[in-house]
C-alpha cells in the first residue's frame, strides 16, 4: 500500500453468479479472506481485474444482492494448529462439524463461523527447554499429552527465535502465553498457517522405509514408502473408498489425516462411527485418537471442497514437523479437480482439456510435492505420505486428472471393475499396478522380513505374468489343452490370487495381515509349487498334483490369528501327500 493512500478494506458487491462473486471498491491481494454480504459469508480472493475483485465464496450465495458490503480481513486462508486437532472432524475450511451442529442443528446453514480449535479448553503444558536456552524457529519448547499422542509445542516457523526469558509449566488455553523470549516475543500453543503455503523444512530426504499397511497386495507387491505418494484410480464400485479406509485404519503411520473431498455423507458417517471403536494394532488405543478427519461432502459448497485438500495437508505437515510419520488420504482428488473446474468456468477462463483449467497439472503437482520424508527445522525426522484416490469418468484412465496424477506419483494401485465384479477384493489389478519404490525398499525387506522375501516377490510376479499370457491361450483352446507344466502354473497363480491377493476387509483377522504372515503365506505357496514341479518331474499327472487335499486348507490360514501351528500342520500334510505320490 502506498503511503497516504487510504486503505479500502470495505467494498460493495457488484455481481453474484453462484459461488463466484465480484466486488468493487476494495483493496485486496490474491487469496485474501473476505467477508461477503450482510451475513458475512466467508470467501477468498481468486482474481483481481482492474477495479473488480473476484471472490469464491465458501457458502451458499442464494439471496445475496448487488450492493451488499464486502470486507477484507487482509489475512490469507489459514488453519489453526495446536492441541485439539486430533479426533476432530472438520469441514473444508476447518470449521469443526460438531460445533456447527451445536450452533445450527442437523443441517449446515450458512453464515456461522467457528474456530478450528477450542479456545477455552485448557491443556497441561510441560516445558522441555528452560529460561536461558537458545531457541530458533521450529524448535520444540514443550509437550502436551493430547490423546495417547504427545503434541509437541514448537516455535512458529517464521519466528526469529532467541533466548528464552520465561517458560511456565501448567494448564493453559491455546491463546495463553507459555513462553516469552528475551526480545519480548510471546509464544502460545496456537500457530496459524496459510494453507496454500508449504511449511518450511530443513531438508527433504529420499524415502527408504515402507509404510506398512497390512494389506497383502500393497505391502507385498506394490509398497509405498513413508513420505511417498500413491494414486488409487478406479471406476465407481471398484473399492477405492474401502481401500482408502483400510489404509487409514491400518497403515503404521503415527498420525492419519483423512480428507473426504466431495464424497458421500453416509461414508463419512461410517468412518465416524467405526474409527472410535477400532483399535490401533500397535497401541491398542482407539484409532480415532491419532486421526484428523476433514469431511466436505459432495453437496457442501464447492469452494470449500477446493480448499479442503490444502487444509488437510497443512495439518499433516504440522504433525510431520513434530517428528511424526503422517499419512494423508484424499478421497477423491477428482472431486477436488472438478471443484477447480467449476470455479474456473465461472471465472470464464479459457479451458484446457475436458474443461479443466490449464493449471490443473500445476496444482496437482504442487499438492503431491508437499509429501515427503524430511528433516524438520528442529532436526526431527518426520514424513507425510500422500495417497490420493482418483475417480476417472467411465473408468477411463486416459482422462486428464488420472494422467496428470500418474506423472507425479510413484505408486499406482490400479483398481479394476472386473475384479470387483467377481468379488476379488481388494480389486487392485496386479498387472497394471506398479511401485517405483521397490529398489529403495529392498534393503528394508531384506533386513526386517527375510532375505528370501525379495526373490519370493519376484517369483510371484513372474507366475502372475505367466498366467496372464496363458489365459489368452486358455480363452481360445480351453485349459485341458495346455501342457502339464503350464496347468500347474495356472493352478499356482490361482493360489496366489485367491490365498495371497484376496483379502477380506470385513474379517476381524484378515483385515490386517502383518508382514511376517505375508512372508509365511507366500512361502507356503512357493513350497507347494516346488513340490508340484518335483512330483510332476517324477511322473505325477497334473490332476494328481492339483488334487492335493492339504492345499485346500491353506485359505483358512487367513482367518486364524495364531496361524503358525495350523500352517505347520498343513505343510506337513502336504509333504506327506507328495511323498505318497512318489512311492506309489
Amino acid at each position, binding site marked *: 500500500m502506498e503511503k497516504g493512500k487510504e486503505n479500502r478494506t470495505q467494498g460493495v458487491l457488484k455481481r453474484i453468479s453462484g459461488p463466484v462473486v465480484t466486488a468493487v471498491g476494495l483493496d485486496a491481494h490474491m487469496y485474501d479472506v473476505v467477508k461477503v454480504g450482510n451475513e458475512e459469508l466467508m470467501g477468498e480472493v481468486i482474481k483481481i481485474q482492474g477495479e473488480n475483485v473476484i471472490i469464491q465464496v465458501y457458502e451458499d450465495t442464494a439471496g445475496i444482492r448487488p450492493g451488499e458490503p464486502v470486507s477484507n480481513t487482509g489475512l490469507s486462508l489459514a488453519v489453526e494448529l495446536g492441541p485439539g486437532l486430533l479426533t476432530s472432524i472438520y469441514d473444508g475450511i476447518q470449521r469443526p462439524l460438531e460445533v456447527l451442529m451445536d450452533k445450527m442443528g442437523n443441517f449446515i446453514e450458512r453464515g456461522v463461523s467457528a474456530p478450528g480449535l477450542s479456545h477455552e479448553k485448557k491443556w497441561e503444558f510441560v516445558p522441555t527447554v528452560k529460561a536461558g536456552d537458545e531457541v530458533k524457529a521450529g524448535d520444540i519448547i514443550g509437550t502436551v499429552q493430547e490423546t495417547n499422542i504427545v503434541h509437541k509445542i514448537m516455535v512458529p516457523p517464521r519466528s526469529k527465535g532467541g533466548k528464552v526469558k520465561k517458560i511456565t509449566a501448567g494448564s493453559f488455553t491455546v491463546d495463553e502465553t507459555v513462553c516469552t523470549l528475551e526480545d519480548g516475543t510471546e509464544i502460545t500453543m496456537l500457530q496459524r498457517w496459510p494453507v496454500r503455503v508449504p511449511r518450511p523444512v530443513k531438508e527433504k530426504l529420499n524415502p527408504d522405509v515402507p509404510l506398512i499397511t497390512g494389506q497383502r497386495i500393497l505391502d507385498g507387491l506394490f509398497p509405498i514408502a513413508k513420505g511417498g505418494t500413491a494414486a488409487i484410480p478406479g471406476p465407481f464400485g471398484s473399492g477405492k473408498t474401502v481401500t482408502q479406509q483400510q489404509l487409514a485404519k491400518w497403515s503404521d503411520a503415527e498420525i492419519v489425516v483423512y480428507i473426504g473431498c466431495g464424497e458421500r455423507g*453416509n461414508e463419512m458417517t461410517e468412518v465416524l462411527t467405526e474409527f472410535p471403536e477400532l483399535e490401533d494394532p500397535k497401541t491398542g488405543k482407539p484409532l480415532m485418537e491419532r486421526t484428523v478427519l476433514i469431511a466436505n461432502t459432495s453437496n457442501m459448497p464447492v469452494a470449500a471442497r477446493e480448499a479442503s485438500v490444502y487444509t488437510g495437508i497443512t495439518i499433516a505437515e504440522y504433525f510431520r514437523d513434530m517428528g511424526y510419520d503422517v499419512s494423508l488420504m484424499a478421497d477423491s482428488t477428482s472431486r477436488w479437480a472438478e471443484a477447480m473446474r467449476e470455479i474456473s468456468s465461472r471465472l470464464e477462463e479459457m479451458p484446457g482439456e475436458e474443461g479443466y483449467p490449464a493449471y490443473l497439472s500445476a496444482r496437482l503437482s504442487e499438492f503431491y510435492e508437499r509429501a515427503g520424508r524430511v528433516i524438520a527445522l528442529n532436526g526431527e525426522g518426520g514424513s507425510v505420505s500422500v495417497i490420493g484416490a482418483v475417480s476417472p469418468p467411465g473408468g477411463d484412465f486416459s482422462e486428464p486428472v488420472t494422467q496428470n496424477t500418474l506423472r507425479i506419483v510413484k505408486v499406482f494401485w490400479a483398481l479394476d471393475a472386473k475384479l470387483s465384479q467377481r468379488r476379488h477384493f481388494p480389486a487392485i489389478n496386479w498387472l497394471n499396478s506398479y511401485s517405483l519404490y521397490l529398489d529403495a525398499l529392498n534393503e528394508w525387506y531384506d533386513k526386517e522380513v527375510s532375505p528370501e522375501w525379495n526373490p519370493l516377490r519376484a517369483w510371484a510376479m513372474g507366475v502372475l505374468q505367466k498366467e496372464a499370457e496363458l489365459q489368452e491361450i486358455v*480363452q481360445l483352446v480351453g485349459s485341458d489343452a495346455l501342457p502339464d507344466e503350464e496347468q500347474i502354473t495356472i493352478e499356482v497363480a490361482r493360489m496366489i490370487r485367491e490365498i495371497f491377493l484376496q483379502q477380506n476387509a470385513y474379517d476381524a483377522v484378515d483385515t490386517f495381515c502383518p508382514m511376517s504372515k505375508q512372508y509365511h503365506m507366500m512361502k507356503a505357496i512357493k513350497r507347494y509349487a516346488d513340490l508340484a514341479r518335483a512330483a510332476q518331474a517324477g511322473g505325477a499327472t497334473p490332476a494328481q498334483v492339483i488334487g492335493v487335499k492339504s492345499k485346500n486348507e491353506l485359505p483358512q490360514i487367513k482367518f486364524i490369528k495364531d496361524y503358525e501351528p495350523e500352517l505347520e500342520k498343513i505343510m506337513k500334510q502336504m509333504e506327506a501327500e507328495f511323498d505318497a505320490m512318489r512311492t506309489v
Partner: protein
Amino acid sequence: MKEYRTVTQIAGPLVFVEKTEPVGYSELVNIVTADGTVKRGQVLDTSDEIVVVQVFETTAGIGRDSGIRFTGETIKMPVGRDMLGRILSGGGKPIDGGPEIVPEKRLEITGAAINPYARSSPEDFIQTGISTIDGTNTLVRGQKLPIFSASGLPHNDVALQIARQAKVPGSTEEFAVVFAAMGITREEANYFMADFEKTGALERSVVFLNLADDPAVERTITPRLALTTAEYLAFDLGYHVLVILTDMTNYCEALRQIGAAREEVPGRRGYPGYMYTDLASIYERAGIIKGVKGSVTQIPILTMPGDDITHPIPDLTGYITEGQIVVNRELHRKGIYPPINVLPSLSRLMNLGIGKGHTREDHKKVSDQLYAAYAEGNDLRGLVAIVGKDALSERDRMFLEFADLFEDRFVRQGLYEDRSIEETLDLGWELLATLPEEQLVRIDRELIQKYHPKYRKKAQG
C-alpha cells in the same frame, strides 16, 4: 412489488433484464406476459447492470413488453401433512382437482446439506422381496440406490415392485412414498398411478408429475420439490420415506439445455462441468439423522443412453450414490424378470445392514460365493462359444451349469412374488449345493456345516 419492463434479450429459457434495483441471487421471479399469464423463474446471475432469469416454463409469450417481478425470496415449497395422497405438477401445484395444500411450513427447496456429524449410520435392512436385491445387493434405510436401466427394459416394474413390497422385517412402521416423474410419458405415468391406486399405496404417497410435454426447465426443480417434501415427511413427521425419481436422464438433459443456453463451457458430452455437484445436491438428500425418527431412502431411475454405463449420467450418478442396480437387456431377452444383472450391480451399504442381528450370519459369505461362482460360470460362456462344451473340464462344466441355474432360479421371480430373506438365502444355498463342497472357498466350514442343505438334511433326519 415493483414490475420491470426492461427485458433486453430472450434466449431459450433465459430472460435478461436490465436496470433493476439490487436483486438477490437465486431469487424467485414472476413474469407477467401481455395476456396476463404469470410464469415463474429464478435468478441465475445478478449484477447491478443485468439480471439473468431462468424461466421454468416455456418462454412463449414473453417479450419486451412482459412485466418482471422479483419476489425478494428464494423458491420455497409449502408443505403440510395433507400432502399424502395428492398428485402435484412438476412445479408443485395440485393437478388432481383437489384443494390447495394447506401449508404448515414453507421450506427452501434447495435444502441444506446434512451435517455429516449429525448423520446416523444406515443399518436397517429393507426387505424388497426381490432376491437379487435382498440377497446380493441389499438395500438399507437411508441409502440412495439407483436403478440403471435402458430404454425398453422393465425398470418401472422393478421400481413398482420395490415400492409395493418394501418393508423392514419385524417393524410395523409403514413407508411413505414420494414419487417424482421427470419427462416421462403420460402412459408411463398412468401405469405408475394405476398401480399405486390398485395397491392402495396412493394414500401414503405424494406424486409429482412433470410429463414429457411439460417444460423441460421445470424438471430441474421437480426432484428438489419432491425431496423437500420427503425431508419434511421424514424429519418433521417421522415417516420412513421412499423416494422414487424417474427418469434422471431427462433431468440431466434439461440441465444440459440450460447450460447451452447460458453459453457455458461444456464438460463431457456437452453436459455442464458442475453436473456432479448438481446431481450430488439431489442424491445426497438421503439418510438418517441421529435422534430423529424418520428416514429418506432414494431409488432414482435412469436410462443409460445406448446401454452405456460409462455415459456421464450413469457415471456421475454411480460416483455419488451408494451402489447401483443394473437392469440388463440380455437377461430381458432371455425372458427373465427381473432382468437384474448382479455382476455390475452393487450396494455399498450392504455390509452395514446384513449379518447377525440384521438378516442372517451367513448372508455376506453366501452372497460373495454366489457372485464368485456366477462370475466364473458367466466367463466360461464366452469360451464355450469358441471351443464347445465338450472341451471344458468337469469343474468348468459345473460352473457353467451353475450360471444358468442361478439366472433361472435366483434371478427369475414373479412380478408379485415376495420372497423373505430366509427364502432368498436358502435358495442361494440350494444352488450352491450343486457345486462340490470344496469349491465353496469363500464360506468357512462352520457355516457350511450349519446351512449347507447336505448337513441340514442330516441334522433334521
